[in-house]
């Protein structure tokens, strides 16, 4: 790992000043992706601005929405008692990321800012129609995620929180890579009521995407049977040593069914 200057500001405004000043610097939250990336010398920032000093963590459940602060770890999301009642699938998703040690450090803000194409959270944000609150603005999950490792964030913009509307029902199912636990394919379904169902797929493509044919079918009938026979095109899907594009396309259907069947 190349050396860098380490900063641990305690105020968001100071963090923003630091990242503005250090053009080759990087923001770090839990560091569960960034530190391994630096160790492999795939990243060599001049400065690390560690956001854990901000103390920006915690989950707040209101009547119709949930706010998860950006620095909340996966372990905290997985075990939050109020959140378990409001959006149980979100707790289950967080409890399935990496391993216990990674979940003790990795954060929701870091995960979505990194936007790994096989990360779990992007599927949750898109299916739950979440709003990302940054140091500069609010934007919908649909607009936030751009493509492989890309988001709408500007270089000096910091994710502060994610707001989730509470759905009637939601579920998440993933086929994890047995070594990394990243999603080979993960499908998040959310029934928001009044015929508004959203289906988001992670791991299969260059980034999270919505499966609109499934959304339409589930809007009419929210049951596992409703997605039977709805194919996902393999054309643009990922292909690697773990799975072919066709296999991933098939898994989208299987995971969607499981997600609907397990929805609470």
């Amino acid at each position, binding site marked *: 790992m190349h*050396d860098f200057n380490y900063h641990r500001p305690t105020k968001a405004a100071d963090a923003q000043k630091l990242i503005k000043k250090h053009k080759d610097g990087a923001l770090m939250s839990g*560091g569960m992706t960034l*530190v*391994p990336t630096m160790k492999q010398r795939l990243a060599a920032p001049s400065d*690390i601005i560690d956001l854990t000093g901000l103390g920006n963590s915690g989950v707040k459940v209101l009547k119709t929405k949930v706010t998860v602060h950006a620095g909340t770890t996966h372990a905290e999301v997985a075990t939050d008692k109020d959140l378990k009642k409001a959006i149980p699938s979100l707790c289950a998703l967080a409890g399935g990321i990496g*391993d*216990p*040690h990674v979940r003790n*450090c990795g954060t929701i803000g870091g995960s979505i800012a990194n936007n790994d194409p096989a990360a779990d959270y992007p599927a949750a944000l898109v299916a739950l129609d979440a709003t990302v609150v940054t140091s500069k603005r609010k934007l919908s999950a649909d607009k936030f995620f751009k493509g492989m490792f890309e988001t709408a964030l500007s270089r000096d913009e910091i994710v502060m929180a994610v707001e989730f509307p509470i759905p009637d029902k939601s579920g998440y199912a993933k086929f994890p890579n047995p070594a*990394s636990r990243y999603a080979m394919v993960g499908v998040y379904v959310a029934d928001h009521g009044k015929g508004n169902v959203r289906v988001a797929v992670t791991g299969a493509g260059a980034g999270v995407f919505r499966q609109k044919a499934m959304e339409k079918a589930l809007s009419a009938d929210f049951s596992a049977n409703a997605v039977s026979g709805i194919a996902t095109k393999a054309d643009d899907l990922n292909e690697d040593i773990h799975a072919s594009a066709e296999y991933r396309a098939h898994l989208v259907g299987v995971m969607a069914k499981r997600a609907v069947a397990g929805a609470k």
Partner: protein
Amino acid sequence: MPTVSMKVNGDTVSGEVEGRTLLVEFLRDTLGLTGTHVGCDTSQCGACVVHVDGKAVKACTALALACEGQSVTTIEGLAKNGALHPMQEAFRENHGLQCGFCTPGMIMSAVDIVKRNGKKVKEATIRAELDGNICRCTGYHNIVKAIQDGASKM
């Protein structure tokens, strides 16, 4: 060079580090606490697990400077007054190791698993919770047995 201070196994320690110095390097190279091992160095094997402010983390993926002011417990900090911790004793009793390289991380994870899941933690839970610890010798069977045994005595 920046200086870092933290509590390690109850003692206040400090030392000069670089920004890039990992917690495990600080523990092993600066403090000479070589019980914490580095297996894969890619946050997968869990041989480097320590507790930071009561939470199990991989010391190969934590920056030393990020632990400023925090309280770290390593495998060396488990035994009290010359008596092994019940989990260490259970690993010995149940032969929960072969080469022993992964053992420090296994035991630190085991203590954390019991803390979060209670003394009556089920076998299936232990197996799932060992996701982040790799052993290439034992096939895990005796490790799981040791953790169940240690849990009941903690």
